[in-house]
């Protein structure tokens, strides 16, 4: 996995109450136990604290997989979308 993907899965894990190793780019948020919009908001806060990015909430909330989130953040960070999967 790319560095950014690793970094993002490490941010998702404590919010989702999972071990980072159980997540991969194909993991779907709706499959995570007890995932909720409030948890998504905490994740957004953590992402924006750790990375110089401000997310559009509409796009953030429509993200379905870890990989899509990585793409959205990469776009915000101004890189080309990471494709190494």
């Amino acid at each position: 996995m790319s560095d950014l993907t690793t970094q993002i899965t490490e941010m998702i894990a404590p919010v989702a109450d999972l071990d980072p190793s159980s997540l991969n780019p194909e993991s779907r948020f709706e499959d995570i136990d007890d995932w909720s919009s409030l948890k998504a908001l905490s994740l957004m806060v953590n992402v924006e604290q750790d990375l110089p990015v401000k997310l559009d909430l509409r796009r953030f909330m429509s993200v379905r997989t870890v990989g899509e989130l990585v793409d959205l953040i990469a776009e915000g960070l101004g890189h080309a979308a990471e494709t190494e999967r």
Partner: protein
Amino acid sequence: MNPIPLADLLTRLRRLRTDGAAPDPQLWPAIRELTGMVERAKVGGLLAGVPARLVAGDSRPLRPLRVGLTGTFTADGLLPLLRTALLAAGIDAEIQLTGYGRLMLDLGDPASPLADFAPDVVLCLLHDEALLPDDWDPTDLAALDQHLTAAAAEIGELTLGFAARTGATMLLHTVPLSALEYRTLVAQRSRAALGRAWRRANLALLDLPDRSPQVHVLDLETLVANQPVALRDERRYRFARMAWSPGVEDLYATEAAAFCRALTGLSRKVLVLDLDQTLWGGVIGDDGPTGIELGSLYPGNAYLEVQRRAKKLRQQGVLLAVCSKNSPEPVARVFAEHPAMVLRAEDFVAQAVNWSPKDGNLRELGHRLNLSLDSMVFFDDSAFECELVRQSLPDVRVVHADGDPADHAARLLGSGLFDVVQLTDTDLERTGRYRAEVQRRAGLAEAGSTRAFLESLQLRVRIRRADSYSVPRVHQLLQRTNQFNTTNLRWTEAQIEEAVASDDRMVLVFDVADRLGSEDTVGVVLLTVAPAQWTIDNFVMSCRVFSRGIEFAVLHGVVERASRHGASRLVADLIPTARNAPAVTFYREAGFTPVAESGQTYDLALEPLPRLLPAWIDLEGETADV
């Protein structure tokens, strides 16, 4: 510098959530030192399922506290931050957050889920739109003013009502106004009128503590103005009615936890200061007493600011001490002669100026002042000394005076470690009393024998019934005294007030005087009074007056009173804790006998009347008041 990396900390916390997990007490100091908001949020997310006991270990008893949370907005983002902050403050909190926007119902309905939870403390969270009318006319600010005043008054009445009904302590806060509202008005005069109306509403909240000792107000508006964070994140507000940005949630969590720490008597009492590069710039050994940086110009004025703020802490009852690697002689010269010094030798209760390791010096200061390490804050510029003290004495809180000295004063005060709920007269005179105590101990060494020394002191003890004026001090003694505390029964001010007024209870306080000075209200005895039997519910005495037989003189006074009222037995409970070793043998030494097997209840027959008064103490007020 956190000894445990975050990933390890999270893994170890997760381990504690499994059944039968063993305590991992290294985690607690690591959690106290977390510096980033995201770290605190992540840790707080895991803490929900972890018994606090497992994090702190059995040797560090945390204070239990039921914390109710009710707000006018969605406060879920605050929850993990608050969990971390409360645990870091030494509190084993049971937290209940009621649903979004339930504040009025929670406070107003006697059968609300919040009331059912029976909280010790209620944190009331308010946001600007909850005070503003739904749709307000930007050309009629008089109507807005009226509405705001009424809204603040309603919240105030509900808060006072809840406090009176339940006995809970309430923490409100001033409400910062969003710039969106301010900029809605285009006229400068209108903005000033809005500002006036807004401040009047906040003022109404700030007036509440004058109306009830149970109601407190945190001035969030001032705190937010000093933080480089936005008041709210509009996305979170529009999407989920979260009215505070993560930065404000973190700020509030820290301040609310400091309040709870003060409320549960965990405030620090002693500030131990380094000298070189902390109280002045430069190194006295190299630069000489005249060469240090201290005065009206930067950076000397930054060090001076630390001195000014430390002095203000002293004036409010914080004890100051010095711990410095230096030769005593040039240090004494600076304290005596340097014209710019704000702090003088008499501002300190003790000084350790020598070349020994600082951890040993702090221990020695603790012995000399009879204060435990968990009452101390250590402030030093050296990363080495700070790390040494953190490692060697985890009970001492360390504040590192690193970076630009201009920030040091704010760093010192920003810790909130000395916060108390309110000042008592005792706080104002504390330094003088501790200095006298140090003299007494020096006298003991000279007198040769303890008995000769005690005889020479001319000790007098006066016992009196507590009245309404004594309630704050009684509350403080019950909260802050850990060593001589027979049952750890800790009452709220309202409960003390009730006991003072009750016929079935008696609250006695005592003063001590000797030839070196006097100390009012150094201890309290809570009694339940029945015709045949008096019961000591708690007996608490400040560690300042240990080792003089004062407790026996007071017990003598209690025995005499009980006997005079016709009681034939005096009964007392003794509940050992990790901290109250000085009280554990007290009743046995006084001639009480244990009742049954539990070993926690003691009994003393009052016929014939036991004589407990030490020969070197005069007991006053024996017949005057009761």
